[in-house]
């Protein structure tokens, strides 16, 4: 990631998926702190708390309780203070409608979680590589 000190916000409710992301990031030597929150509502609360450092990227699951990924995007992408934080969707859903809704709401990427852990590591490696090179208006 471009800014090694800024946290990565991981909005994900599945414990093993959280472990997978953490492990994969560790394996590819990404040292950014990972903030994990279980649903969109909690993530919004975190993002709007002035005491918290804004994340350099948001990794977003779609299927979550209370406030799902798409609902979260609807709020974040209409908030002038939050809309420029890149959001990469990380989901099991290959449903066309989810892809359309996500891109309509300006996501920076849409990744399907592979079942194979090795492939998952590769997905994380690609995300990291991209967001290390890409400029961001932060």
């Amino acid at each position, binding site marked *: 990631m471009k800014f090694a000190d800024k946290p990565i916000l991981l909005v994900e409710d*599945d414990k*093993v998926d959280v472990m997978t992301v953490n492990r994969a990031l560790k394996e590819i030597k990404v040292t950014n702190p990972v903030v994990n929150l279980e649903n969109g509502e909690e993530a919004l609360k975190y993002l709007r708390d002035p005491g918290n450092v804004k994340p350099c990227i948001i990794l977003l699951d779609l299927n979550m309780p209370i406030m799902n990924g798409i609902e979260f995007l609807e709020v974040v992408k209409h908030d002038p203070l939050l809309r420029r934080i890149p959001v990469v969707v990380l989901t*099991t859903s290959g*449903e066309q409608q989810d892809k359309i809704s996500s891109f309509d709401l300006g996501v920076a990427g849409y990744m399907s979680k592979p*079942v*194979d852990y*090795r492939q998952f590591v590769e997905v994380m490696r690609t995300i990291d590589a991209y967001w290390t090179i890409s400029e961001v208006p932060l």
Partner: protein
Amino acid sequence: MDPLKDQSLLSKSPASFFFIVSLSVFVSEASVMLLLYYLPQMSLIGEAIIDATLLIAVVSPVLYFFLFRPLVVHVREREQIEDVLHENEEEQFKVMIRTSLDAFVITDPDGHILEVNDAYCQLTGYSRRELLTMNTADIEVMETPEEGAGHIGKLFVTGSNRYETRKRRKDGRVQTVEVSSNYSKLNGGRIYSFLRDITERKQAEEQRSKLLREIESANEELKNFAYVVSHDLKAPLRAISSLADWLSTDYADKFDEQGREHMRLLVSRVRRMDGLIDGILLYSRVGRVKETMVAVELERMVHEVIDLLAPPANITVTIANPLPTVMAEPTRIQQVFQNLLSNAIKYMDKPVGKICIACSEEKAQWKFSVTDNGPGIKEQHFAKIFQLFQTLAPRDRVESSGVGLALVKKIVEMYGGRVWVESAVGEGSTFFFTFPRTPANPNPNPTKGAQA
């Protein structure tokens, strides 16, 4: 034929009529001459009076007998005939209405019943005597007075009206009837209505549409079910896969040979399940997710598919004759060829593998075939291989989800085509499928298709 011609001499024979009139004029004029000859002292006025009197006396009876009387007689007779005909007609209508299977009722504009037929009595369960004291509103069920007024209002404006309404029989049973009414202004206003009991038809219609709704919702549910289930199964599967991977990495030194083998099997089964779930997703997506129909150049597409499958060096894939361009969803038609070809490659058991794609015209359809010189299939399995998750080789030997041919069948049938196999064990198989040359819109629920 006009009866006038038989009655009046004028029309029957104008010449003789004029001859008779002329003769009578001549006779009267001759008599005047004779009178004048014997009475020479007559004045001119006297002459004229006698002349006119005689003329009238002779000509009038002639005109009367030969012209007017026959006419009068004729008109009278005609009136009589018409009366008889009219009575017959009325009688005919009465019989028609009496024997009609449809109920008939005459009411005044306020709905008071003035006349009914037997069918109306049967329809309502009341006797004629009872009905003649009643108002149609008494046997109307659901209609509010406004609704009834609406029917009648339309009737007064347009002269006729057709509508459905519900009637309560004397025994309380409610029935749906179709009413066809006509309004006549004669006799202070009369409404003539034919009624037909359509209760059974209505019930059958309702039952049918209810059934249809149920099937639709069940179908919808099934489609979503396949999707949701496979989607939700993926998350825990991913967790199992990750955890197994970490266990074998993190505790590599603690596993003995058997432990490592078990972990390997665990991971391979996870992959297999992942493949199955992907298969269900793929299968349920056909017909659920619609693509635009475009002209697909099969020649080019099949070459792309062959390149994609990259058959090993010992297998040659040939295209026997030029393939046509068809209207289809590109992904679907590609899936058909891809599955048939990958099966032929995957199961090839000969050192020199030969796969041949051919196409021929058959009436309104194209007939495609994919022939291989592989192991062949026993006839008893011809139907089974097209079912979802059915494979003939153990999965440990040939990794297969068992979705491919089921998918092919679903796609082909969705386009109104047919898929089948011919095979000789040991010599090879030929898979055939037909595809309409001018496809209608693909039917998302093929009747013969496997359910998913």
